[in-house]
């Protein structure tokens, strides 16, 4: 029997979990949407996704090596960066664009230990296509044009409309999100309050013929809301840690998205909303410290 026992502070048991597990959980959750993107846009989509992942992996490895810190290429976080980033670009962009986006995103990530996923999204959009906004407006108009039928909502849900690689099919993204929630890898508060806020605000204020005539379902399914709400707003590093803070964060994202969509110049506001709320996170955290067990509310 060995007389050399390990001595450390309690607890001596740990849940079988790790960053790696969480990250690969997200990768698994994204698989349906990856398969869907290949189905909708062909092999080119797959190629862009793979390039993006590869670039993220290499960037992470090279920078960590250069800085002399442990290389964590195996923990799956680079894959998550790569996939999500490629999901945010239109399938028609030249091959080097996701590469540049990935290198930038992962580079910042590795150096600062945190990049809001939404930053990657916005940066890539800008790098990828300076004319992307006009592109999106045209696209949004087209979709809006045949909004009359319930068929178009169904198409949005299934993914039969043009758009960025990954945000096309709501159902495939929701399947992955359900898996993440089931595994407790993401938290329900942020996505649910985010989407509920957008639904309510667009229903109340978004209609062409006065209050309470907006098409909430369209706003939820169109654009990157589902991708953003479940996969980006829930990014742990840049969202609040307390339950109350998460709700404020989700509602805030919803309000900003609705404002940008309804009265702003962009047809889409998911990325900017999440980014702005990311910036507000330290402030939210400071003011939403949960009441301690047995803490009495200060009177007056």
């Amino acid at each position, binding site marked *: *029997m*060995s*007389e050399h*026992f*390990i*001595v*450390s*502070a*309690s*607890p*001596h*048991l*740990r*849940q079988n*979990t*790790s*960053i790696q*597990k*969480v990250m690969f959980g997200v990768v698994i959750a994204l698989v349906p949407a990856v398969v869907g993107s290949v189905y909708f846009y062909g092999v080119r989509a797959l190629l862009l996704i793979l390039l993006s992942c590869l670039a993220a992996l290499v960037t992470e490895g090279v920078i960590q090596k250069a800085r002399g810190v442990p290389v964590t290429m195996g923990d799956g976080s680079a894959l998550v960066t790569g996939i999500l980033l490629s999901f945010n670009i239109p399938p028609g962009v030249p091959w080097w664009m996701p590469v540049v986006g990935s290198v930038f995103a992962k580079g910042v990530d590795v150096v600062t*230990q945190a990049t809001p996923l939404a930053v990657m999204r916005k940066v890539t959009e800008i790098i990828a296509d300076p004319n992307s906004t006009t592109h999106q407006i045209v696209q949004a108009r087209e979709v809006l044009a045949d909004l009359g039928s319930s068929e178009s909502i169904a198409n949005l849900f299934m993914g039969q409309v043009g758009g960025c690689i990954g945000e096309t099919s709501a159902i495939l993204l929701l399947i992955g999100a359900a898996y993440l929630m089931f595994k407790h890898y993401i*938290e329900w508060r942020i996505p649910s309050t985010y989407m509920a806020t957008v639904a309510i605000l667009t229903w109340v204020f978004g209609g062409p013929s006065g209050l309470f005539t907006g098409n909430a379902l369209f706003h939820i399914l169109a654009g990157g809301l589902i991708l953003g709400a479940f996969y980006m707003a829930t990014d*742990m*590093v*840049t*969202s*609040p*840690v*307390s*339950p109350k803070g*998460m709700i404020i964060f989700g509602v805030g994202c919803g309000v900003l998205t609705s404002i940008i969509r309804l009265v702003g110049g962009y047809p889409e506001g998911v990325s900017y909303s999440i980014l702005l709320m990311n910036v507000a996170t330290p402030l939210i*955290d400071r003011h939403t*410290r*949960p*009441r*301690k*067990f*047995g*803490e*009495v509310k200060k009177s007056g």
Partner: protein
Amino acid sequence: MVSVGDEVKVGTVIGEAAGFVSVPVHASISGKVTAVGRFPHPLGGEHQAIVIEGDGEDSWHESVVPRDNVDSLSPKEIKDIIRDAGIVGLGGAAFPTHVKLSPPDSKPIDTAILNGAECEPWLTADHRLMLERPAEVMRGFHLIMRALGCERGFVGIESNKPDAVEAMKAAVPAGSGVRVVMVQVKYPQGAEKQLIDSLIRRKVPAGGLPMDVGVVVQNVGTALAVYEACYKGIPLVRRVVTVTGNPVENPSNFSPRVGTMVGSLVEQAGGLSDEVSKVISGGPMMGIAQFTLDVPVIKGMSGVLFLGPGEVDTRPPDPCIRCGHCVHACPMKLLPTTIEKYVMVEAIDKAVKIGLNDCIECGACAYVCPSRRRLVHQFKYGKYLSAELRNKAAERSDKEKGN
């Protein structure tokens, strides 16, 4: 109290109480004192200890005689017996029981709670006690209630021990104010404040004690010790200890005398079959890792847990990813991640402000952390620093007064 060469019997007082919050120590076997000195202690480091070489006679001190007037004892008399028997909280903290039973008059107690939750994984000492000696435990609890002068009592048992609930229910005498209640299996259900909240929905104020809400909680093992002291005159010289873990050949509960070496308990349990990486005094969530088996059973030792090589996670921690799992896990509703960050930069005043000293060190936060952060380790260190700061501040104000 004793010196080398002295003959002692079971129950001879060998260490005297040093103040109110202190109890005497009794010889747990009969024999001869062979050494008085400093020896390894389960709480870490070395402490004063007395070595007794047993004579195999197990002859008891003449003061150990059964009492037949138990029903007429006054609360004061019960508390004195408890103190003189050296009884401390056997749940693990080993806080002197008579002190807990003597709240100031400004804090009337209306409810006593018997803690049979036993929420630490692996440990089954309290469970066995409730199964094997429910009547004695219940009588001990009634004595505790009498000492407190309260009519209402609850026995809280986690619902994974239905047999213990049955046994304890059967032991409740008719017409008594005691109710046996099944509580949810939920770590840390056995923590005083959480158990009080579960049973009677009272929240002990932050920084306060159960008596602030009119409650005193005692462990089932303590209740048995009270019974033995009051009815049989036996001081606290033995307790139930769970010896368990995968490397242990025959995991068992023992009732060793206090002072028995942990190494010989292991032999009783059939020895160790596998390599051992970690030895823990107490349970896996809050227990203390041992560096040697040459430590004695102490009054607060509820179990000895052995972990094999595959069961000890020695991977270094990863950076915090702010997932918030610790925040959701914390039973005290604190922000473990934020407190950790403050402690790591030694911003102790800030850490205290957001609840460092409210932490009960249950380990739930570190258990769920995907980055394996050493949260409890930092909190213990932070509390140590905070106590140091308090002492310094007290010294300073004393000096100023002196000038």
